[in-house]
């Protein structure tokens, strides 16, 4: 092999660089983040398993049906009626997205841009527990 030394050094650097997320965060990340569930209602629009797998699809569905097709209510698998609205249905219970939605999103590095426009009734001031830099990064 030509330039053996340079190649081996390059391979080692490559491995170190691309495995950085693993060894840099060793011990710091929990497999499942602690999310704050709402205290009043026990059940969501659908079951926990369904929501975990399908909440984004459901929200997009609701968005298109509400805005583009003018439908108002969603009938869940139990036959209950829910208003198709992120603000008035979901965020009514999951009031603080930072402690619920974003905890998982940040862990898996999912960045939906809903929050640019949709704002819940968030009574809590994020700057009480987080630095301004963190607030800006997650906003």
């Amino acid at each position, binding site marked *: 092999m030509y330039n053996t030394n340079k190649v081996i050094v390059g391979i080692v650097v490559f491995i170190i660089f691309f495995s950085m997320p693993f060894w840099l965060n060793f011990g710091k990340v929990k497999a499942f983040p602690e999310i704050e569930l709402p205290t009043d209602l026990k059940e969501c629009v659908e079951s926990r398993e369904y929501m975990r797998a399908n909440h984004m699809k459901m929200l997009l569905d609701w968005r298109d049906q509400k*805005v*583009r097709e*003018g439908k108002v209510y969603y009938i869940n698998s139990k036959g209950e009626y829910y208003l198709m609205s992120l*603000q*008035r249905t979901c965020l009514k219970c999951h009031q603080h997205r930072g402690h619920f939605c974003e905890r998982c999103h940040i862990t898996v590095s999912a960045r939906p841009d809903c929050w640019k*426009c*949709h*704002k819940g009734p968030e009574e809590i001031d994020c700057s009480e527990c987080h630095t301004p830099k963190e607030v800006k990064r997650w906003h």
Partner: protein
Amino acid sequence: MALKRRDFLKFLGLTGVAGIGATLGGVLIGKGEHILKEVQTSGKVRWAMAIDTRVFKTEEDFQKVIQACHRAHNVPSIPDPLREVKWIWVDTFERAFPTIENQYISDDIKKRKFLLLCNHCDNPPCVRVCPVKATFKRHDGVVVQDLHRCIGCKFCMAACPYGARNYNFYPPREFLKDINPEYPTRTLGVVEKCTFCYERIDEGKLPYCVEASEGKIYFGNLNDPKSSVREAIAKNIVIVRKPELTTKPMVFYII
């Protein structure tokens, strides 16, 4: 010399391609027309509004209506007058109806103020030009703005003859004091306008401005001869903005 077989085949091939191309072009044009036909109201309900300009007397009358809409919909109050966002606002007769304005009309009309908003036209130029169908006309006549899809090209603002559309030149949340948690805000770089409160009329309620006007604004189904708006238009003299453009606006002004 007789036509060579190869040349004949080439000719056939070219004609075939041209034929298919023309058909596709025809289909495309036909489809466009088909869509244009669809943007006009086809349903049983056609929402319209009639504003009785005679009974709006004080500044407070107007502000009650405007604030009801703007507060509920989180419309930011931008201090820059050139770039403000206004879903419903007050303007003079001269600016609202520039083509019928005349120096010899009555003083009363000249001094009167008019509430202007999106007219939810029956033949809306803004719907025709939107490249992503972010702005579209529902079957019941409401011209909806889907903020999830708007790419901010501002073509609809160029097309609207009434200046009813607003681009978010500034981040709106910087200029919102109290955010209504029941309605989203918008973000930079999208176009917004009056929605005829379609989220409320879908639930059987009246638009915020109509409710706040306490009877000064009529709203209803134009196709229903017994609706308040139909009666208001039938019994009074009404004008619309820029009728010569045949956009068929659905906001009527009782003068």
